[in-house]
Protein backbone atom coordinates (compact mmCIF):
# COMPACT_ATOMS: atom_id res chain seq x y z
CA UNK A 1 0.00 0.00 0.00
CA UNK A 2 1.39 3.39 -1.02
CA UNK A 3 0.19 6.31 1.05
CA UNK A 4 -0.70 9.59 -0.61
CA UNK A 5 1.75 11.22 1.77
CA UNK A 6 4.58 9.09 0.45
CA UNK A 7 3.68 9.89 -3.17
CA UNK A 8 3.58 13.58 -2.43
CA UNK A 9 6.87 13.63 -0.60
CA UNK A 10 8.60 11.63 -3.35
CA UNK A 11 7.08 13.93 -5.96
CA UNK A 12 8.34 16.96 -4.08
CA UNK A 13 11.86 15.48 -3.87
CA UNK A 14 11.70 14.70 -7.57
CA UNK A 15 10.57 18.22 -8.45
CA UNK A 16 13.35 19.76 -6.41
CA UNK A 17 15.90 17.56 -8.17
CA UNK A 18 14.68 18.24 -11.72
CA UNK A 19 14.09 21.95 -11.30
CA UNK A 20 17.46 22.58 -9.67
CA UNK A 21 19.19 20.52 -12.35
CA UNK A 22 17.34 22.33 -15.13
CA UNK A 23 18.30 25.74 -13.75
CA UNK A 24 21.95 24.73 -13.33
CA UNK A 25 22.08 23.22 -16.81
CA UNK A 26 20.66 26.42 -18.34
CA UNK A 27 23.14 28.52 -16.37
CA UNK A 28 26.06 26.40 -17.59
CA UNK A 29 24.91 25.88 -21.20
CA UNK A 30 24.10 29.45 -22.13
CA UNK A 31 27.53 30.97 -21.47
CA UNK A 32 29.14 27.99 -23.21
CA UNK A 33 26.94 28.49 -26.26
CA UNK A 34 27.53 32.25 -26.39
CA UNK A 35 31.26 31.70 -25.91
CA UNK A 36 31.27 29.17 -28.74
CA UNK A 37 29.79 31.78 -31.04
CA UNK A 38 32.73 34.16 -30.64
CA UNK A 39 35.58 31.66 -30.33
CA UNK A 40 35.65 28.88 -32.91
CA UNK A 41 38.17 26.69 -31.08
CA UNK A 42 36.30 27.00 -27.80
CA UNK A 43 33.09 26.12 -29.62
CA UNK A 44 34.70 23.07 -31.16
CA UNK A 45 35.80 21.74 -27.75
CA UNK A 46 32.43 22.48 -26.15
CA UNK A 47 30.37 20.77 -28.84
CA UNK A 48 32.74 17.77 -28.93
CA UNK A 49 32.50 17.35 -25.18
CA UNK A 50 28.73 17.70 -25.15
CA UNK A 51 28.39 15.19 -27.99
CA UNK A 52 30.65 12.76 -26.15
CA UNK A 53 28.64 13.05 -22.93
CA UNK A 54 25.52 12.45 -24.98
CA UNK A 55 26.96 9.29 -26.51
CA UNK A 56 27.40 7.57 -23.14
CA UNK A 57 24.31 5.54 -22.19
CA UNK A 58 22.20 7.21 -19.51
CA UNK A 59 22.67 4.48 -17.00
CA UNK A 60 26.44 4.49 -17.51
CA UNK A 61 26.58 8.23 -16.80
CA UNK A 62 24.75 7.60 -13.55
CA UNK A 63 27.16 4.79 -12.68
CA UNK A 64 30.28 6.76 -13.65
CA UNK A 65 29.77 9.52 -11.09
CA UNK A 66 29.66 7.08 -8.17
CA UNK A 67 33.40 6.28 -8.03
CA UNK A 68 34.14 9.97 -8.56
CA UNK A 69 31.63 11.59 -6.20
CA UNK A 70 29.96 8.85 -4.24
CA UNK A 71 26.20 8.68 -3.94
CA UNK A 72 23.46 11.10 -2.93
CA UNK A 73 21.74 14.22 -4.23
CA UNK A 74 24.71 16.13 -5.66
CA UNK A 75 26.29 13.23 -7.56
CA UNK A 76 22.83 12.69 -9.07
CA UNK A 77 22.65 16.34 -10.15
CA UNK A 78 26.05 16.03 -11.86
CA UNK A 79 25.05 12.82 -13.63
CA UNK A 80 21.86 14.37 -14.97
CA UNK A 81 23.68 17.54 -15.97
CA UNK A 82 26.06 15.62 -18.16
CA UNK A 83 23.14 14.45 -20.24
CA UNK A 84 21.11 17.65 -20.19
CA UNK A 85 23.79 20.09 -21.35
CA UNK A 86 24.03 19.03 -24.98
CA UNK A 87 20.53 19.86 -26.21
CA UNK A 88 20.62 23.32 -24.68
CA UNK A 89 24.17 24.14 -25.80
CA UNK A 90 23.66 22.80 -29.28
CA UNK A 91 20.27 24.38 -29.90
CA UNK A 92 21.35 27.73 -28.48
CA UNK A 93 24.51 27.69 -30.54
CA UNK A 94 22.70 26.73 -33.73
CA UNK A 95 19.97 29.31 -33.12
CA UNK A 96 22.52 32.07 -32.58
CA UNK A 97 24.77 31.14 -35.47
CA UNK A 98 22.28 30.31 -38.23
CA UNK A 99 20.96 33.79 -38.89
CA UNK A 100 20.14 34.84 -42.44
CA UNK A 101 23.46 36.37 -43.62
CA UNK A 102 21.67 39.27 -45.30
CA UNK A 103 20.23 40.25 -41.93
CA UNK A 104 23.66 40.21 -40.30
CA UNK A 105 25.09 42.13 -43.22
CA UNK A 106 22.34 44.67 -42.91
CA UNK A 107 22.76 44.96 -39.13
CA UNK A 108 26.45 45.62 -39.71
CA UNK A 109 25.72 48.10 -42.47
CA UNK A 110 23.43 50.28 -40.37
CA UNK A 111 26.00 50.47 -37.61
CA UNK A 112 24.91 47.98 -34.96
CA UNK A 113 27.80 46.89 -32.76
CA UNK A 114 28.52 43.26 -31.84
CA UNK A 115 26.44 43.43 -28.66
CA UNK A 116 23.48 45.07 -30.40
CA UNK A 117 23.56 42.45 -33.14
CA UNK A 118 23.41 39.75 -30.47
CA UNK A 119 20.63 41.51 -28.59
CA UNK A 120 18.43 42.60 -31.52
CA UNK A 121 19.17 40.05 -34.24
CA UNK A 122 20.79 36.83 -33.09
CA UNK A 123 18.96 36.28 -29.81
CA UNK A 124 15.40 36.78 -31.10
CA UNK A 125 16.29 34.57 -34.03
CA UNK A 126 17.48 31.87 -31.61
CA UNK A 127 14.51 31.90 -29.21
CA UNK A 128 12.55 29.07 -30.86
CA UNK A 129 15.63 26.82 -30.99
CA UNK A 130 16.62 27.67 -27.41
CA UNK A 131 13.14 26.85 -26.14
CA UNK A 132 13.09 23.58 -28.06
CA UNK A 133 16.46 22.71 -26.52
CA UNK A 134 15.31 23.47 -22.99
CA UNK A 135 12.12 21.46 -23.45
CA UNK A 136 14.07 18.50 -24.71
CA UNK A 137 16.61 18.85 -21.90
CA UNK A 138 13.79 18.79 -19.38
CA UNK A 139 12.43 15.52 -20.80
CA UNK A 140 15.91 14.02 -20.42
CA UNK A 141 16.33 15.42 -16.90
CA UNK A 142 12.95 14.12 -15.84
CA UNK A 143 13.67 10.60 -17.07
CA UNK A 144 17.24 10.38 -15.81
CA UNK A 145 16.12 11.70 -12.43
CA UNK A 146 14.20 8.42 -12.18
CA UNK A 147 17.41 6.43 -12.76
CA UNK A 148 19.43 8.44 -10.24
CA UNK A 149 17.22 7.11 -7.46
CA UNK A 150 19.56 4.14 -7.84
CA UNK A 151 22.44 6.24 -6.50
CA UNK A 152 20.45 7.81 -3.73
CA UNK A 153 18.96 10.96 -5.21
CA UNK A 154 15.54 10.16 -3.85
CA UNK A 155 12.43 11.18 -5.76
CA UNK A 156 9.91 9.20 -7.78
CA UNK A 157 12.52 6.74 -9.02
CA UNK A 158 12.76 5.41 -5.48
CA UNK A 159 9.11 4.32 -5.60
CA UNK A 160 9.61 2.72 -9.00
CA UNK A 161 12.71 0.78 -7.99
CA UNK A 162 11.07 -0.37 -4.75
CA UNK A 163 8.10 -1.50 -6.77
CA UNK A 164 10.27 -3.34 -9.28
CA UNK A 165 12.14 -5.20 -6.56
CA UNK A 166 8.95 -6.16 -4.73
CA UNK A 167 6.86 -6.89 -7.85
CA UNK A 168 4.52 -4.21 -6.55
CA UNK A 169 2.70 -2.72 -9.55
CA UNK A 170 0.91 -0.21 -7.40
CA UNK A 171 4.24 1.26 -6.28
CA UNK A 172 5.60 1.32 -9.81
CA UNK A 173 2.58 3.27 -11.02
CA UNK A 174 2.72 5.57 -7.99
CA UNK A 175 6.18 6.55 -9.16
CA UNK A 176 5.60 6.52 -12.91
CA UNK A 177 2.32 8.42 -13.20
CA UNK A 178 3.47 11.57 -11.33
CA UNK A 179 6.65 11.54 -13.43
CA UNK A 180 4.57 11.53 -16.60
CA UNK A 181 2.31 14.27 -15.26
CA UNK A 182 5.35 16.41 -14.43
CA UNK A 183 6.62 16.05 -17.99
CA UNK A 184 3.28 17.03 -19.48
CA UNK A 185 2.76 19.95 -17.08
CA UNK A 186 6.22 21.32 -17.82
CA UNK A 187 5.61 21.12 -21.53
CA UNK A 188 2.37 23.06 -21.23
CA UNK A 189 3.82 25.73 -18.93
CA UNK A 190 6.90 26.18 -21.04
CA UNK A 191 4.96 26.43 -24.27
CA UNK A 192 2.98 29.26 -22.66
CA UNK A 193 6.14 31.10 -21.64
CA UNK A 194 7.54 30.60 -25.12
CA UNK A 195 4.45 32.09 -26.74
CA UNK A 196 4.69 35.12 -24.45
CA UNK A 197 8.33 35.73 -25.22
CA UNK A 198 8.24 35.07 -28.96
CA UNK A 199 5.27 36.91 -30.40
CA UNK A 200 3.55 35.94 -33.61
CA UNK A 201 6.36 36.69 -35.99
CA UNK A 202 6.57 33.28 -37.55
CA UNK A 203 4.01 31.95 -39.99
Amino acid sequence: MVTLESILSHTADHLVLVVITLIISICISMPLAFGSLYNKRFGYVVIKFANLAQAVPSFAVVAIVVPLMGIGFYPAVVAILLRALLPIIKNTYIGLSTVDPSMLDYADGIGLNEWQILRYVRLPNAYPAIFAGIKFAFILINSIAILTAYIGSGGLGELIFQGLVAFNNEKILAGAIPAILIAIAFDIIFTRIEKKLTPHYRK
Partner: protein
Amino acid sequence: MASKRLFDKIDSIQLLSVTKKYDDRFAINDISIDIEGGELVIFIGPSGSGKTTTLRMINRLIEPDSGTILINDQNVMELEPVALRRNIGYVIQNIGLFPHMNIAENIGLVAKLEGWDEKKIKDRVEYLLDFVSLPSEMFMDRYPHQLSGGQQQRVGLARALMMDPPLLLMDEPFGALDPILRKQLQEEFYQIREKLGKTIIFVTHDIEEAFKLGDRIAIMDDAKLVQIGTAEELIFHPANEMVASIVDTSKKFKHLDTLKIKDLISPLECMYVHDGSLDVEGAISSMIEKNIEIAVVSNGSGPLGIVKLIDLLRMDDKESKIVDHVIEIPSFSRNELLSSSLKIMQKDGHSMAFVMTDGKLSGFLFPNDAFSQVIG
Protein backbone atom coordinates in the same frame (compact mmCIF):
# COMPACT_ATOMS: atom_id res chain seq x y z
CA MET B 1 24.93 57.17 -26.75
CA ALA B 2 24.00 59.20 -29.77
CA SER B 3 26.53 59.03 -32.57
CA LYS B 4 27.99 62.22 -33.87
CA ARG B 5 26.45 63.69 -36.97
CA LEU B 6 29.46 63.37 -39.21
CA PHE B 7 28.16 65.33 -42.18
CA ASP B 8 25.01 67.31 -42.82
CA LYS B 9 25.53 67.30 -46.53
CA ILE B 10 27.88 65.60 -48.91
CA ASP B 11 30.22 67.89 -50.83
CA SER B 12 32.33 65.20 -52.35
CA ILE B 13 33.24 61.55 -52.15
CA GLN B 14 36.63 60.59 -53.50
CA LEU B 15 38.18 57.22 -54.07
CA LEU B 16 41.92 57.56 -54.62
CA SER B 17 43.76 54.54 -56.06
CA VAL B 18 41.74 52.15 -53.97
CA THR B 19 42.81 48.50 -54.12
CA LYS B 20 41.51 45.41 -52.39
CA LYS B 21 42.80 41.88 -52.82
CA TYR B 22 41.49 38.55 -51.66
CA ASP B 23 44.48 36.21 -51.71
CA ASP B 24 45.97 36.80 -55.16
CA ARG B 25 42.81 38.00 -56.81
CA PHE B 26 41.98 41.65 -57.15
CA ALA B 27 38.49 42.56 -55.92
CA ILE B 28 39.20 46.22 -56.68
CA ASN B 29 42.22 47.22 -58.71
CA ASP B 30 43.42 50.82 -58.40
CA ILE B 31 40.11 52.61 -58.64
CA SER B 32 39.85 56.40 -58.51
CA ILE B 33 36.52 58.21 -58.70
CA ASP B 34 35.26 61.68 -57.82
CA ILE B 35 31.62 61.88 -56.84
CA GLU B 36 29.96 65.24 -56.35
CA GLY B 37 27.42 65.99 -53.65
CA GLY B 38 23.84 65.40 -54.80
CA GLU B 39 24.85 63.09 -57.59
CA LEU B 40 23.34 59.67 -58.25
CA VAL B 41 26.14 57.45 -59.47
CA ILE B 42 25.40 53.96 -60.67
CA PHE B 43 27.93 51.15 -60.65
CA ILE B 44 27.25 48.47 -63.20
CA GLY B 45 29.18 45.49 -64.49
CA PRO B 46 29.25 41.70 -64.61
CA SER B 47 29.08 39.82 -61.32
CA GLY B 48 32.46 39.72 -59.64
CA SER B 49 33.53 42.96 -61.30
CA GLY B 50 33.88 44.70 -57.94
CA LYS B 51 30.85 46.99 -57.97
CA THR B 52 29.43 45.80 -54.65
CA THR B 53 32.89 45.73 -53.08
CA THR B 54 33.35 49.38 -54.05
CA LEU B 55 30.01 50.29 -52.49
CA ARG B 56 30.76 48.43 -49.27
CA MET B 57 34.10 50.18 -48.89
CA ILE B 58 32.39 53.52 -48.52
CA ASN B 59 30.75 52.53 -45.23
CA ARG B 60 33.75 50.39 -44.24
CA LEU B 61 31.99 47.04 -44.40
CA ILE B 62 35.08 46.20 -46.45
CA GLU B 63 38.38 47.98 -45.81
CA PRO B 64 40.81 48.74 -48.61
CA ASP B 65 44.33 47.28 -48.71
CA SER B 66 45.67 50.51 -50.14
CA GLY B 67 44.35 53.82 -51.37
CA THR B 68 42.14 56.34 -49.63
CA ILE B 69 38.40 56.96 -49.46
CA LEU B 70 37.42 60.51 -48.54
CA ILE B 71 33.97 61.81 -47.69
CA ASN B 72 34.02 65.60 -47.49
CA ASP B 73 37.81 65.30 -47.31
CA GLN B 74 37.62 63.11 -44.20
CA ASN B 75 39.33 59.74 -44.52
CA VAL B 76 36.71 57.10 -43.72
CA MET B 77 39.39 54.94 -42.11
CA GLU B 78 39.79 57.61 -39.45
CA LEU B 79 36.07 57.66 -38.65
CA GLU B 80 34.51 55.35 -36.13
CA PRO B 81 32.73 52.60 -38.17
CA VAL B 82 29.50 52.56 -36.15
CA ALA B 83 29.16 56.35 -36.35
CA LEU B 84 30.06 56.34 -40.04
CA ARG B 85 27.41 53.72 -40.86
CA ARG B 86 24.73 55.51 -38.88
CA ASN B 87 25.38 58.56 -41.02
CA ILE B 88 24.90 56.60 -44.23
CA GLY B 89 21.64 55.02 -45.39
CA TYR B 90 21.97 51.44 -46.56
CA VAL B 91 19.57 49.48 -48.76
CA ILE B 92 20.30 45.95 -49.94
CA GLN B 93 18.72 43.57 -52.40
CA ASN B 94 17.67 41.04 -49.76
CA ILE B 95 16.18 43.90 -47.77
CA GLY B 96 17.18 42.27 -44.48
CA LEU B 97 14.08 43.24 -42.53
CA PHE B 98 14.16 41.67 -39.08
CA PRO B 99 11.32 39.11 -38.99
CA HIS B 100 10.72 39.40 -35.26
CA MET B 101 10.17 43.16 -35.33
CA ASN B 102 7.13 44.85 -36.79
CA ILE B 103 7.51 47.47 -39.50
CA ALA B 104 7.65 50.44 -37.12
CA GLU B 105 10.31 48.71 -34.98
CA ASN B 106 12.31 47.78 -38.05
CA ILE B 107 12.36 51.34 -39.33
CA GLY B 108 12.93 52.91 -35.92
CA LEU B 109 15.63 50.58 -34.60
CA VAL B 110 18.66 52.79 -35.12
CA ALA B 111 16.80 55.87 -33.87
CA LYS B 112 15.97 53.94 -30.71
CA LEU B 113 19.61 52.98 -30.25
CA GLU B 114 20.51 56.62 -30.76
CA GLY B 115 18.26 57.49 -27.85
CA TRP B 116 15.43 59.30 -29.65
CA ASP B 117 12.26 59.53 -27.61
CA GLU B 118 9.32 57.37 -28.61
CA LYS B 119 7.12 60.17 -29.87
CA LYS B 120 9.81 61.48 -32.19
CA ILE B 121 10.47 57.96 -33.53
CA LYS B 122 6.77 57.35 -34.13
CA ASP B 123 6.28 60.64 -35.95
CA ARG B 124 9.28 60.05 -38.18
CA VAL B 125 8.24 56.46 -38.96
CA GLU B 126 4.74 57.61 -39.89
CA TYR B 127 6.13 60.34 -42.10
CA LEU B 128 8.50 57.95 -43.88
CA LEU B 129 5.89 55.23 -44.44
CA ASP B 130 3.61 57.75 -46.06
CA PHE B 131 6.58 59.06 -48.02
CA VAL B 132 7.17 55.62 -49.58
CA SER B 133 3.42 55.26 -50.29
CA LEU B 134 2.56 52.82 -47.52
CA PRO B 135 -0.34 54.17 -45.39
CA SER B 136 1.28 54.25 -41.96
CA GLU B 137 -1.78 53.28 -39.95
CA MET B 138 -2.07 50.08 -41.97
CA PHE B 139 1.55 49.07 -41.99
CA MET B 140 3.19 50.17 -38.71
CA ASP B 141 2.11 47.11 -36.75
CA ARG B 142 2.51 44.51 -39.44
CA TYR B 143 5.34 42.01 -39.55
CA PRO B 144 7.61 41.70 -42.58
CA HIS B 145 6.21 38.33 -43.70
CA GLN B 146 2.79 39.96 -44.06
CA LEU B 147 4.13 42.30 -46.75
CA SER B 148 4.67 41.73 -50.45
CA GLY B 149 8.16 41.98 -51.92
CA GLY B 150 7.52 45.46 -53.26
CA GLN B 151 6.15 46.67 -49.94
CA GLN B 152 9.13 45.20 -48.11
CA GLN B 153 11.49 47.04 -50.41
CA ARG B 154 9.63 50.28 -49.73
CA VAL B 155 10.06 49.64 -46.01
CA GLY B 156 13.75 49.03 -46.73
CA LEU B 157 14.00 52.49 -48.24
CA ALA B 158 12.04 54.11 -45.39
CA ARG B 159 14.37 52.43 -42.92
CA ALA B 160 17.44 53.74 -44.70
CA LEU B 161 16.00 57.27 -44.53
CA MET B 162 15.19 57.14 -40.80
CA MET B 163 18.25 59.06 -39.64
CA ASP B 164 17.98 61.43 -42.61
CA PRO B 165 21.45 60.51 -43.86
CA PRO B 166 22.92 62.75 -46.55
CA LEU B 167 24.33 59.70 -48.36
CA LEU B 168 22.52 56.55 -49.47
CA LEU B 169 24.19 53.32 -50.54
CA MET B 170 21.85 51.07 -52.52
CA ASP B 171 22.98 47.60 -53.50
CA GLU B 172 20.67 46.25 -56.24
CA PRO B 173 17.62 47.43 -54.33
CA PHE B 174 15.15 46.34 -57.01
CA GLY B 175 17.08 43.26 -58.13
CA ALA B 176 14.85 40.64 -56.51
CA LEU B 177 11.56 42.04 -57.78
CA ASP B 178 9.61 40.84 -60.79
CA PRO B 179 9.99 43.02 -63.90
CA ILE B 180 6.70 44.91 -63.77
CA LEU B 181 7.02 45.66 -60.07
CA ARG B 182 10.62 46.67 -60.60
CA LYS B 183 9.61 49.17 -63.23
CA GLN B 184 7.00 50.68 -61.00
CA LEU B 185 9.38 51.04 -58.06
CA GLN B 186 12.03 52.55 -60.34
CA GLU B 187 9.44 55.03 -61.50
CA GLU B 188 8.47 55.92 -57.93
CA PHE B 189 12.08 56.13 -56.85
CA TYR B 190 12.82 58.40 -59.78
CA GLN B 191 10.06 60.71 -58.64
CA ILE B 192 10.98 60.86 -54.95
CA ARG B 193 14.66 61.22 -55.70
CA GLU B 194 14.29 64.93 -56.33
CA LYS B 195 12.51 65.40 -53.02
CA LEU B 196 15.21 63.43 -51.24
CA GLY B 197 18.03 65.66 -52.40
CA LYS B 198 20.62 63.11 -51.36
CA THR B 199 23.86 61.81 -52.74
CA ILE B 200 23.21 58.25 -53.85
CA ILE B 201 25.56 55.47 -54.85
CA PHE B 202 23.68 52.66 -56.49
CA VAL B 203 24.72 49.22 -57.73
CA THR B 204 22.77 47.37 -60.40
CA HIS B 205 23.21 44.82 -63.15
CA ASP B 206 20.35 46.27 -65.17
CA ILE B 207 21.53 48.80 -67.76
CA GLU B 208 18.01 50.12 -68.31
CA GLU B 209 17.75 50.87 -64.61
CA ALA B 210 21.12 52.62 -64.83
CA PHE B 211 20.03 54.79 -67.77
CA LYS B 212 16.77 55.62 -66.12
CA LEU B 213 18.04 56.59 -62.68
CA GLY B 214 21.69 57.50 -62.93
CA ASP B 215 23.27 60.92 -63.35
CA ARG B 216 26.49 59.15 -64.18
CA ILE B 217 27.19 55.50 -64.77
CA ALA B 218 30.42 53.79 -63.76
CA ILE B 219 31.16 50.66 -65.73
CA MET B 220 33.22 48.06 -63.88
CA ASP B 221 34.90 45.00 -65.29
CA ASP B 222 37.38 42.61 -63.76
CA ALA B 223 38.01 44.73 -60.63
CA LYS B 224 38.70 47.84 -62.69
CA LEU B 225 36.75 50.97 -63.48
CA VAL B 226 36.48 50.94 -67.24
CA GLN B 227 34.58 54.16 -67.86
CA ILE B 228 32.43 56.64 -65.99
CA GLY B 229 30.12 59.12 -67.66
CA THR B 230 26.57 60.10 -68.50
CA ALA B 231 24.38 57.79 -70.55
CA GLU B 232 25.05 59.85 -73.69
CA GLU B 233 28.81 59.73 -73.21
CA LEU B 234 28.76 55.96 -72.78
CA ILE B 235 26.51 55.40 -75.77
CA PHE B 236 28.27 57.71 -78.16
CA HIS B 237 31.85 57.35 -76.96
CA PRO B 238 32.24 53.92 -75.40
CA ALA B 239 35.80 53.43 -74.11
CA ASN B 240 36.03 49.90 -75.48
CA GLU B 241 34.10 46.94 -76.85
CA MET B 242 33.05 45.85 -73.40
CA VAL B 243 31.36 49.18 -72.64
CA ALA B 244 29.78 49.17 -76.08
CA SER B 245 28.32 45.74 -75.47
CA ILE B 246 26.97 46.69 -72.04
CA VAL B 247 25.27 49.83 -73.32
CA ASP B 248 24.48 47.95 -76.52
CA THR B 249 25.44 50.81 -78.80
CA SER B 250 24.03 49.13 -81.87
CA LYS B 251 20.56 49.83 -80.53
CA LYS B 252 20.89 53.55 -81.02
CA PHE B 253 20.62 52.99 -84.75
CA LYS B 254 17.27 51.35 -84.37
CA HIS B 255 14.73 53.61 -85.91
CA LEU B 256 11.92 54.41 -83.63
CA ASP B 257 9.49 54.87 -86.50
CA THR B 258 9.87 51.30 -87.75
CA LEU B 259 9.33 49.68 -84.41
CA LYS B 260 5.99 48.11 -83.64
CA ILE B 261 4.41 47.66 -80.27
CA LYS B 262 4.95 43.91 -80.39
CA ASP B 263 8.73 44.49 -80.34
CA LEU B 264 8.57 46.05 -76.92
CA ILE B 265 5.63 44.34 -75.29
CA SER B 266 5.78 43.25 -71.64
CA PRO B 267 3.78 40.03 -71.68
CA LEU B 268 0.68 39.62 -69.53
CA GLU B 269 0.56 37.08 -66.74
CA CYS B 270 -2.91 35.90 -65.83
CA MET B 271 -2.39 36.62 -62.13
CA TYR B 272 -2.77 40.30 -62.94
CA VAL B 273 -6.34 39.95 -64.12
CA HIS B 274 -9.09 40.53 -61.55
CA ASP B 275 -12.82 40.48 -62.10
CA GLY B 276 -14.60 43.83 -61.77
CA SER B 277 -17.18 42.45 -59.36
CA LEU B 278 -14.50 41.80 -56.74
CA ASP B 279 -14.66 44.16 -53.74
CA VAL B 280 -11.76 46.36 -52.70
CA GLU B 281 -10.98 44.26 -49.62
CA GLY B 282 -10.77 41.09 -51.72
CA ALA B 283 -8.63 42.75 -54.36
CA ILE B 284 -6.17 44.01 -51.72
CA SER B 285 -5.67 40.58 -50.21
CA SER B 286 -5.39 38.96 -53.62
CA MET B 287 -2.80 41.50 -54.78
CA ILE B 288 -0.77 41.27 -51.59
CA GLU B 289 -0.80 37.50 -51.84
CA LYS B 290 0.31 37.59 -55.47
CA ASN B 291 2.84 40.30 -54.71
CA ILE B 292 1.61 42.66 -57.42
CA GLU B 293 1.15 46.41 -57.28
CA ILE B 294 -1.26 46.87 -60.13
CA ALA B 295 -4.17 44.71 -61.28
CA VAL B 296 -6.04 44.58 -64.55
CA VAL B 297 -9.79 44.87 -64.04
CA SER B 298 -11.81 42.82 -66.47
CA ASN B 299 -15.54 42.32 -66.98
CA GLY B 300 -15.28 38.96 -68.67
CA SER B 301 -15.29 40.22 -72.23
CA GLY B 302 -12.21 42.40 -71.97
CA PRO B 303 -10.07 44.66 -69.81
CA LEU B 304 -11.68 47.83 -68.46
CA GLY B 305 -8.59 49.42 -66.99
CA ILE B 306 -6.32 49.03 -64.01
CA VAL B 307 -6.37 49.57 -60.26
CA LYS B 308 -3.30 50.27 -58.15
CA LEU B 309 -2.75 48.61 -54.80
CA ILE B 310 -1.67 51.92 -53.28
CA ASP B 311 -4.97 53.53 -54.26
CA LEU B 312 -7.03 50.61 -53.00
CA LEU B 313 -5.26 50.68 -49.63
CA ARG B 314 -6.21 54.31 -49.20
CA MET B 315 -9.89 53.83 -49.96
CA ASP B 316 -12.34 54.31 -47.13
CA ASP B 317 -15.06 52.12 -48.58
CA LYS B 318 -13.48 48.68 -48.71
CA GLU B 319 -16.82 47.06 -49.61
CA SER B 320 -17.19 48.79 -52.95
CA LYS B 321 -16.49 46.98 -56.21
CA ILE B 322 -13.17 47.56 -57.89
CA VAL B 323 -14.98 48.17 -61.15
CA ASP B 324 -15.98 51.55 -59.68
CA HIS B 325 -12.35 52.55 -59.13
CA VAL B 326 -10.92 51.61 -62.49
CA ILE B 327 -8.35 53.91 -64.04
CA GLU B 328 -8.84 53.74 -67.78
CA ILE B 329 -5.73 53.35 -69.85
CA PRO B 330 -5.33 53.29 -73.62
CA SER B 331 -5.17 50.05 -75.51
CA PHE B 332 -3.40 49.36 -78.79
CA SER B 333 -3.16 46.46 -81.17
CA ARG B 334 0.21 44.74 -81.16
CA ASN B 335 0.82 45.61 -84.79
CA GLU B 336 0.42 49.35 -84.35
CA LEU B 337 3.47 51.55 -84.70
CA LEU B 338 5.25 52.31 -81.48
CA SER B 339 5.87 55.96 -82.31
CA SER B 340 2.21 56.88 -82.82
CA SER B 341 1.06 55.01 -79.72
CA LEU B 342 3.74 56.67 -77.62
CA LYS B 343 2.58 60.06 -78.84
CA ILE B 344 -0.99 59.32 -77.83
CA MET B 345 0.11 58.13 -74.41
CA GLN B 346 2.37 61.11 -73.89
CA LYS B 347 -0.41 63.51 -74.77
CA ASP B 348 -2.74 62.06 -72.15
CA GLY B 349 -0.02 61.44 -69.58
CA HIS B 350 -0.41 57.66 -69.35
CA SER B 351 2.45 55.59 -68.01
CA MET B 352 1.14 52.28 -69.30
CA ALA B 353 -1.19 50.84 -71.95
CA PHE B 354 -2.81 47.54 -72.82
CA VAL B 355 -1.61 45.63 -75.84
CA MET B 356 -4.32 43.60 -77.57
CA THR B 357 -3.89 40.59 -79.83
CA ASP B 358 -6.97 39.62 -81.83
CA GLY B 359 -9.17 41.59 -79.48
CA LYS B 360 -7.71 39.92 -76.40
CA LEU B 361 -5.37 41.39 -73.79
CA SER B 362 -1.89 39.99 -74.33
CA GLY B 363 0.47 42.39 -72.60
CA PHE B 364 1.44 45.87 -71.52
CA LEU B 365 3.35 48.75 -73.02
CA PHE B 366 5.45 50.94 -70.73
CA PRO B 367 6.69 54.01 -72.62
CA ASN B 368 9.59 54.67 -70.25
CA ASP B 369 10.74 51.13 -70.56
CA ALA B 370 10.25 51.13 -74.31
CA PHE B 371 12.16 54.34 -74.63
CA SER B 372 15.14 53.18 -72.61
CA GLN B 373 15.26 49.98 -74.65
CA VAL B 374 15.34 51.99 -77.81
CA ILE B 375 18.01 54.45 -76.78
CA GLY B 376 19.87 51.85 -74.76
